[in-house]
């Protein structure tokens, strides 16, 4: 749920990058952090284990456009992808406004993608949320690797729910698709918050 500070005219949204371990969630945030102008980005916090796996979560506050006189700020979170950290994932999902599901395109990681997506659905349900209603996009990451699944099969396994959602091919380490994903989800969140008629965007 968005947090609105009427005194400061600031509205905060929480976006969560979800997906299996080593799918590239942290890489997404790192690229966003590297590419945003200083005035739009805060400090990225990342706590990783020795083998570069996210131990707790990553956090990156970014500010964006102004809508209806409110400065919109987005808090980007990732979750630890490993299955044993489900409690942390649940906590990070609390109050979520939008979700990016980062899928690993490699053929041998597809089952983990499916399991993670199922886990996302289960965890959202605990907050009485549903992928059919929450602003949500899918990112097929690591498209530059040789052993990746065809796009139609990825769509078939990960994006054939009641609602088809926008999906993006990405190579997070080089930035391909990172901002397309983020901008689309941000706009979906804004659309949901402010409705169809939008005034004063700047």
């Amino acid at each position: 749920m968005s947090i609105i500070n009427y005194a400061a005219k600031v509205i905060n949204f929480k976006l969560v990058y979800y997906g299996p371990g080593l799918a590239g969630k942290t890489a997404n945030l790192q690229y966003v952090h590297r590419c945003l102008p200083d005035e739009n980005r805060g400090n990225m916090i990342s706590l990783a284990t020795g083998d570069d796996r996210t131990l707790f979560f990553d956090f990156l506050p970014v500010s964006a456009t102004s809508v209806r006189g409110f400065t919109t700020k987005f808090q980007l979170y990732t979750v630890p992808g490993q299955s044993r950290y489900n409690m942390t994932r649940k906590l990070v999902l609390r109050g979520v406004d939008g979700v990016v599901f980062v899928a690993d395109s490699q053929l041998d990681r597809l089952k983990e993608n499916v399991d993670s997506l199922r886990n996302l659905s289960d965890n959202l349900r605990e907050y009485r949320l549903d992928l059919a209603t929450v602003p949500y996009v899918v990112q097929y990451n690591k498209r530059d690797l040789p052993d990746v699944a065809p796009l139609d099969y990825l769509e078939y396994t990960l994006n054939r729910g009641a609602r088809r959602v926008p999906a993006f091919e990405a190579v997070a380490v080089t930035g391909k698709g990172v901002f397309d994903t983020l901008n689309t989800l941000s706009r979906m969140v804004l659309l949901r918050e402010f409705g169809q008629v939008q005034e004063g965007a700047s």
Partner: protein
Amino acid sequence: MSRDHAASILCWLQSLGVATAYVLISAGLLWMDLGDAGVAPAWAILAVPAFYAVVSLVLLRRAPLARYLRWTGHACLTHVALGLAAAFAFMVVEDVTALSALEHALVRLGLAPMLLLVTTPLVLAPFRGRGSSARPASRPARTRPASFAAPAVPSEAPVARAPRRRDDGAEAAAPTAPAAPAPAAEVSAPVVDDTAGDDDAVVRVRFERVAGQLPARAFTLPMDRVAESLREPHWITVPRKIVLPMLPEGAIQVPWPIVASQFPALAFAMSDVEFRQKFPDLKLTLPLDDVLRQLPPDTFSMEPAPSRIAGLEAFPAPFQPRAVPRDEPPAPAPARRVRAPADPPELPPDVVTASAPAAPPTPVSTRLRRATPPPAAPVVAPSPPPMAPAPAIAQAPAAARRRDVAAEGISRDMLTRLADCLAGAGTFEAWTGSVEGTPLVAFVAPTVPRDAVTAVAARVVGLLGGAAGEQVTVRTARAAIVVSAAAPTAVVVAARRPGAPVALLELRAAHAAGVVGRASEGAALPSRALSALTVEPRVADVASTLGAFGVVEPAVLTDAGGAARVYVFRESDHEAEHVGELALAVWESLGGAPDRDLGALVSVVFRQGRRRILVRPVRGRGTALLAAAGPVAHPGRAWRDADRAAAALETR
């Protein structure tokens, strides 16, 4: 009783029933004196095995010769046994001699011997696939629920037909695709039937790609021979109807009974029943790339994803990236101003303790738009970054006040700023001073002996600078010590291991060193006379295991006395001698006499940007060291690679 055991008993009961029926009918024929046309000629005795051999050719198609012979042998034995049973029955029904009864049962030209030829294959039929014939009919097997919140696999998906083929062992009959993949709904088991499914479309997978998943000890033949003796040599076939329902799961895991019939019985080191008991959950995961290639192109056709969402265009893209991304890695937590202590002049300058995170100020006016509870950040520690912990300065023990502070020691304000950099990485006691003439500022976890840490730091700080790097991490059995070059004093952070977040400590320590000031270039290492030895193939092989360091070339160096040997793996454009000299310097400084409090030396890692030089001892006779150098993107993987490489060198 297990399902397989019950099935085995059922087979025996079926056979016994057929045999009993034969005996009763034969006895009835004899009692009614029907169908006796005299004694068969002597050569007829040869006709019986020949007859069964022909029958085996019909029943066992594409089986090895041994299997034909074995089935024929079993049939002959069964033939004799049934004949003896019938003869016994004849003696009971009619008052005839044993010889006469045997004649009637086996060698008379009558209905009873003819009936015996038919009965024998029927008696053996229930055992087909259990040792003497094809692999068995399957047991029902469970599959996972079909999918997560997604439409069903299109059962009407166009399916290419495989050539019709009739096999004895029976292709598995495919289950019907589950109609709706309601989450957590069990799908009915695929039932394999010997008589069905022979005209199904199939997916073929090279046996070699799944052979590794089979328990080799369960086979008498090596896997390459098993591959040759498959029903379709070198290929495993799976009905497409079985594959399709598994596609939404992202993995095709085929239960063993589905493919069991394709393996020759002679290949197994145990009976089928034993095999299933030992490996009840055996599944073969088929390579997805092979499977997907064989599916019709429109198998996954769906409505296209929405290219636009109504109303979205009203909002401009919120984020506009810079044209050129920064090269810098993500910055650690920002240094925050420390809360001023209540009475600063009372506090000693040499002890700073990172405290629990301070709560962030409450927004002046924060309320929810939808009248729901605040979407609090996760409540487990450590707290989210906006609440970056601010260390508070704590009262030092009286003893600490008596410590020597280096004359050139850094100011209290600087000490506080350094502690701020380490916020959230643990609790440390700060100390500044000089050890063996080396000025240090140290942040040491309370459970780690400070004197031992500073002694180690003083010894390695001289190695920093130049190509060795700006930071070095020493791991011992009980501590992780991060030493960062800075001027006027090096920064040392130490924590207990295992358990310390070493990567985080390195990041924070580097940030702290940046606050202190940039160090000048270090002194060059003293030159040594190192001799290069011939690189054996086994050492060259180890180079390939150090993938985290990029492409590295091996070299083996030894010192002048030949007492120490260094296995160097470095980039092709770097000199092995420099890395070797560094490794020996490290060993002389730290490795010779392990500290009692810190434990034995585990590894030393020098960092210069992304380039790392990892030095660790190799167990064995004499002094042997592994030194790997190269650009490292994944430090954890590099550490593990080096561990494996050292293990490989140890065992040879």
